[in-house]
């Protein structure tokens, strides 16, 4: 699929596909609208009965509360850290046809998952195995509704008498469901047959009775059958308790009243979203992201692209510009739509607090099948929970930010900063002190980092927009349960990575070793060769995240002589090159590994950062004075900003961007100018930046800007990577699009060196 490069091509949207094309078998499942339901199944499709305002609110909050309580119960009952701490789980309440009423405050890219699976069940199971009171269906099929196979949904139809009234559902990330790799993130899977088995919806509980044969099969696929057993029991208990609450609510207020509130909640969400879309001009916005290596040993770089089109009162999403599916770096429609919807609701309607179903009505997807982000069967997707889905959360939140930046002041306030483009965790496993197998997905990636926003900095270790309630482990939580010793967990410094007018939140680095255990393995490690954390509007990208492993170090000797090492590079030993996609490797006592969770991208040009904000970071000892001058052009002497020296340094930096020409000062835009992004405006149908004319809006302003291009590892010393990664890193470039008058950055982009600049804003 080639990238549309001309305005006309971009504006011409892909056609919607005929019914049945998206079958859930050869391709992803995308339900018909309205969904297909066999006639034999009785549904409560009533509009409901009138309720007074107080009762309406009581019912609405009760629905929301039962969904919260469902989440809270799962957190209490599950035994896998990835589920209970990371909140890699989701609960929802849905209408009789699977439209979302409430989504819980857990993993937000599960947004579309339950709805897809339920519609599939209605369409394919009602006439075959039947849907009856007391049934529960289990499914982890990415070609139906699961983002990847470990994310297994349990879906419960709630009946009133013989009529299907609504659904309650949960998804848990199960710690291991098999596949080539412990933890089931199978980076080396060439297709779905090396991954955990994908289960299309299967009846696990029939008429209230657990089907032991099915449950046994489910356990059988796991390396951790005990944990899987406990977690599945939690899932069943969660759905049962929520179903009971739902029936109690209906018993108390009446089926009609509760149904009316469900429908009203959907309608209310829809109208709020439509209202917010009004302040944004029609147009198309695009964002690209990258993967390095489709499989271990592969040295290619792959492109993902999302295009967001706003047409009146709706949004249309497509994936043109994305490379064809390959290796294990794919996702299906479930993860693609889940990630994009999560970014849209988190940015534009977080005040709906999970009542997002109405918003989804106004977002249409027209993906092209067979591409990396809408793979056809049997494309492998299992590692996507750490990689490709996070790439799409990052792409989506950036593309939504671009769209919002063209709206009015209220729309700009909705912009969220760029998030972290991967889940840079590790998964380790082995045999524990008691001789039992263990697998530990390091949930500390939950610390995350929030990107810079138009009006303020990001938040250090501030989590992720897509898991509102996630928390990280204590070191003691990890060491109590797993045979590991955490040597350090330290915030990164403020540096060039994430530098912007508002800087991105800081990430962290954590070093660990195995401790008093037998054999252990690092089953998942992600080592960046280049940063993937692009940030719109002139900021530097977030950090590059190398993974450093050293074998046979002197760590034990150092500990024995009274020293706790501060970083892995202080230690002796043999470096293991850990590239973007590596097969699991063994670690022994004395081996040490370090993973880095990057700082997020910022917002705006670092040379426009408030000098006092720079000083404040120096005061906090997060930033040193030489770095302040190098990155921000802010000269600090004896604790205060030297205003004159700072002005000189900043002018010099801008002049350098202009090839030595003297930069002009910023000027106010003419009346009637419409703002686009940070420094760019549209004046009389032409791009305008600080008095510079950057061409007609039918063209890309990037063509008329001053363009500077560096290899991705040369943006600043912070972006340098180990030598073994140079070849890969040097095929990516960082481009600055600079205002020809002032020398300030309008925007920046990361691109494969062979790609022309992306025309990322097209206004109608």
């Amino acid at each position, binding site marked *: 699929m080639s990238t549309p490069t001309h305005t006309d091509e971009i504006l011409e949207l892909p056609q919607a596909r005929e019914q049945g094309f998206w079958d859930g078998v050869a391709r992803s499942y995308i339900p018909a609208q309205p969904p297909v339901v066999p006639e034999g199944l009785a549904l409560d499709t009533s509009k409901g009965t009138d309720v007074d305002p*107080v009762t309406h*609110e*009581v019912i609405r*909050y009760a629905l*929301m509360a*039962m969904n919260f309580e469902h989440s809270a119960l799962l*957190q*209490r*009952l599950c*035994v896998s850290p990835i589920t*209970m*701490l990371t909140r890699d789980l989701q609960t929802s309440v849905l209408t009789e046809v699977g439209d979302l009423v409430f989504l819980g*405050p857990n993993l937000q890219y599960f947004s579309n998952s339950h709805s897809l699976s339920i519609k599939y069940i209605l369409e394919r199971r009602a006439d075959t195995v039947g849907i009856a009171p007391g049934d529960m269906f289990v499914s982890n099929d990415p070609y139906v509704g699961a983002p990847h196979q470990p994310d297994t949904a349990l879906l419960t139809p709630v009946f009133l008498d013989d009529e299907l009234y609504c659904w309650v559902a949960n998804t848990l990330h199960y710690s291991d469901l098999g596949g080539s790799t412990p933890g089931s993130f199978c980076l080396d899977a060439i297709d779905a047959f090396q991954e955990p088995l994908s289960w299309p919806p299967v009846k696990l509980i029939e008429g209230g009775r657990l089907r032991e044969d099915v449950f046994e099969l489910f356990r059988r696929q796991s390396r951790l059958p005990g*944990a899987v*057993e*406990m977690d599945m*029991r939690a899932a*069943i*208990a969660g759905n049962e308790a929520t179903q009971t609450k739902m029936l109690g609510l209906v018993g108390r207020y009446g089926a009609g009243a509760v149904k009316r509130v469900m429908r009203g909640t959907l309608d209310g969400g829809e109208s709020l979203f439509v209202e917010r879309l009004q302040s944004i001009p029609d147009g198309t916005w695009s964002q690209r992201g990258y993967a390095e290596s489709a499989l271990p040993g592969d040295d290619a770089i792959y492109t993902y692209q999302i295009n967001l089109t706003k047409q009146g009162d709706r949004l249309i999403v497509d994936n043109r510009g994305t490379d064809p599916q390959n290796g294990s770096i794919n996702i299906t429609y479930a993860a693609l739509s889940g990630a994009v919807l999560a970014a849209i609701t*988190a940015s534009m309607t*977080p*005040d709906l*607090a999970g009542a997002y179903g109405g918003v989804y009505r106004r977002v249409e997807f027209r993906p092209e099948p067979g591409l990396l982000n809408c793979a056809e069967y049997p494309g492998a997707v299992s590692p996507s929970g750490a990689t490709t889905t996070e790439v799409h959360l990052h792409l989506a939140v950036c593309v939504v930010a671009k769209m919002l930046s063209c709206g009015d002041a209220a729309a700009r*306030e*909705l912009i*969220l900063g760029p998030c972290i483009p991967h889940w840079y965790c590790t998964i380790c496993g082995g045999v524990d002190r008691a001789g039992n197998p263990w697998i530990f997905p390091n949930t500390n990636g*939950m610390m*995350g980092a*929030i990107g810079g*926003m138009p009006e*303020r900095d990001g*938040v*250090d*270790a*501030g*989590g992720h927009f897509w898991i*509102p*309630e*996630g*928390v*990280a482990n*204590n*070191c*003691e939580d990890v*060491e*109590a349960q797993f045979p590991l*010793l*955490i*040597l*350090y*967990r*330290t*915030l990164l410094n403020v540096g060039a990575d994430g530098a912007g007018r508002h800087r991105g939140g800081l990430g*962290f680095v954590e*070093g660990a070793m195995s401790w*008093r255990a037998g054999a252990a393995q690092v089953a998942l490690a992600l080592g960046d060769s280049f940063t993937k954390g692009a940030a719109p509007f002139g900021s530097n990208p977030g950090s590059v995240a190398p993974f450093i492993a050293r074998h046979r170090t002197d760590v034990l000797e150092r*500990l024995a002589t009274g*020293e706790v090492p501060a970083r892995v590079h202080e230690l002796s030993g043999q470096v293991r090159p850990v590239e973007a996609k590596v097969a699991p490797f063994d670690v022994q006592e004395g081996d040490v590994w370090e993973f880095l969770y990057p700082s997020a991208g910022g917002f705006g040009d670092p040379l426009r950062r408030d000098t006092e904000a720079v000083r404040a970071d120096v005061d906090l*000892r*997060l930033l040193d004075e030489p770095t302040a001058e190098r990155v921000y052009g802010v000269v600090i002497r004896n604790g205060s900003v030297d205003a004159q020296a700072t002005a000189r340094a900043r002018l010099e930096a801008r002049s350098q961007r202009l090839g030595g020409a003297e930069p002009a000062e910023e000027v106010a835009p003419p009346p009637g100018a419409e703002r686009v992004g940070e420094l760019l405006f549209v004046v009389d149908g032409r791009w305008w930046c600080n008095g510079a004319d950057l061409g007609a809006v039918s063209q890309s302003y990037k063509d008329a800007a001053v363009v500077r291009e560096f290899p991705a590892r040369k943006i600043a010393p912070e972006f340098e990577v180990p030598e073994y990664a140079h070849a890969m890193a040097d095929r990516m470039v960082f481009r600055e699009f600079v205002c020809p008058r002032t020398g300030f950055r309008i925007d920046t982009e990361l691109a494969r060196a062979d790609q022309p600049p992306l025309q990322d804003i097209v206004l109608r």
Partner: protein
Amino acid sequence: MDDLQPGNGHFHIGVDIGGTFTDVVVSSSTGELHRAKGLTTHGEYGRGIVDVLELVAERELNMPLPDLLARTDSFVNGTTIVTNAVAELRGSRVGLLVTKGTHDTLRIARAPRTNDYDMHTQVPLPDLVGREAIVEVEERVDYSGRVVVPLTRERAEAALRYVVEEQGAEALAVCLLWSFQNPAHEQLIGDLARDIYPDMFLSLSCEVYPVHREYERMVTTVLNSFCGDAVADYVDGLARELRGRGLEVPFSLMQSIGGRIPAAQAKARPISLVNSGPVGGVIGAQSLGQNYALDRIITADMGGTSFDCALIDRGKVGLAHRAQLNRFLTGLSLVDISAIGAGGGSIAWVDDRGMPRVGPRSAGSIPGPACYGRGGTEPTVTDASVALGFIDPDYFLAGAMHVDRELAQQAIARHVAEPVGWSDMEAAAAIWTIVVQNMSGAVRAVSIEKGHDPREFTMVQYGGACALFSAAIARNLSIGRVIIPANASTFSAGGLSHADNRRTYVRTVNWNVLRDSPAHVRDTFTELAEEAHSDLEADGFPPQAIDITLEGDFKFLGQAFEVTKPVDVEALEPQAVYDSFVDTYEAIYGEDTAWEGFDVMLLNCRVTGIGRTEKPPLRRLSVGGGDPERARKGEREVYMPDVRRQAMLAVYSDEQLGPGARLSGPAIVEVRDTTIYVPVDAAFAVDEYANYILEV
């Protein structure tokens, strides 16, 4: 021993120091309640308390204060001092010593975000300890308590000297990894610190909160040191004042968890006093609920600076575990009270969009509302109440204090009415309505938003400012009945006398029930129980007045949350403990949720020691009715903001309204230190406990 000793004592005294008012309630052995109220004297709390005590002794009891204090059996204090320190982050400059590699634990804060779908609202946590005053010490202990890297005396001393001498630390906190498994390194630092800096307040995490999870333990330890000096000064000052005036019994303080603790002990663990005052009210409401056989209560407490509400469901006060204070996760368990900045002193202002807002900033007691005439110029909720005519300027606190209606009107005019372009009365009504909406939202958050239907609850309202608003709040939430206790304005102070002494001990043991020997667990429980016993005996409780309960925090291996259940230390047979946990677990979470092939852990041993105190008796009165007309003291022109109408309202005096009296709204009932607004179509009655009942 302060409570059970026979003698000639006849009084129980509860003193609640809030942000604005200091309240005193003296309960006599016949159940009579005497009360007084005065402004809180920040910086000199002791003097303020003595002033109010004198007021109650001389005016209510007709005796000099030394006589009252000499005849006092128990003296319990709820204090705002720790709450304020944590809320405003004003406390000692703490120097913190941590394990190498964990310097950033406080800033990382396990991801410092609020549980909100909205990322736009996320901001960094404030620094509890300056980053420069956190120092790493080269040491390490592992999960089993084994020393990996020993701590040398030289390194410990260098770290201490660095934070004190180079960073100017005023108090010290130490939190090392796994210190609850092996406290030797923290104790080494502790011994050195006590040696080198004997006067400096010191908290060791292995003493303050010897529990698994270093972030929560670190925050708890740091906050303890943060408040240490302030609490010590406060307790010592108050003890001096009270002893000097004849109090013979040691005084106690209310803890966040809803029990008293002797003041001397509170000094070592000051953080346990957070929320101390408001807890008294909730304990009082629980006790009141028992008299009325009410087991579902929403408490609503509006004082000078904040509005606090809590839920009592099925007779039980809800506790919040691993509670968040300010924005910090701690290891504390406390009575679950939710607070917003809405009180009589909350300041009304106009925001950037030209919309009137109320709070959360408060005028406090200094300068106080504009109408106090103490220099306050910004309009407050109290000013609005005075301007609307609800409060008689000459009968504020039963005439003990004069308020100036002119000043109230001027402040409203200048800061709200003129900027928005409204009349003064419209602006005052807007302030009243906004604060009612804010408080209704807080009640909604603890009830509806947690799945409770407020219609099934009774509101017990108290705090000096609440009774003008409670009917309107109740109506917003469809709560049918509001109880206004006779001593509403000092109710939290009265509630303090209803609490038992409570000592809590917790220690992590990490017992894998079926795999490890229970010997260590048995020893830990025995040790903690003995400690509880001897501590309570030292507090003066005879063995027959002491109850010890042993509980364990159990979970399946790997779970993030524990189930706390009773433990019988005599029967620690592993299989029986395992089975009993599975039974409890399934009783809570449902049949088949447990799987008996999975390891069960006992994470923490918890021991609670209760020293049972003598409670003031309750007085029941005969219902004689009383003619409300006799109680009618006149009428007053009031603008009723709820119906947007000005009218002459009948004003009644509570002194003539005996038990059984009834009247209907609209009306004003003036109680000595509070004013009740009975809105249109509401019914008011006085019951046999002399409490006021509003049917709204």
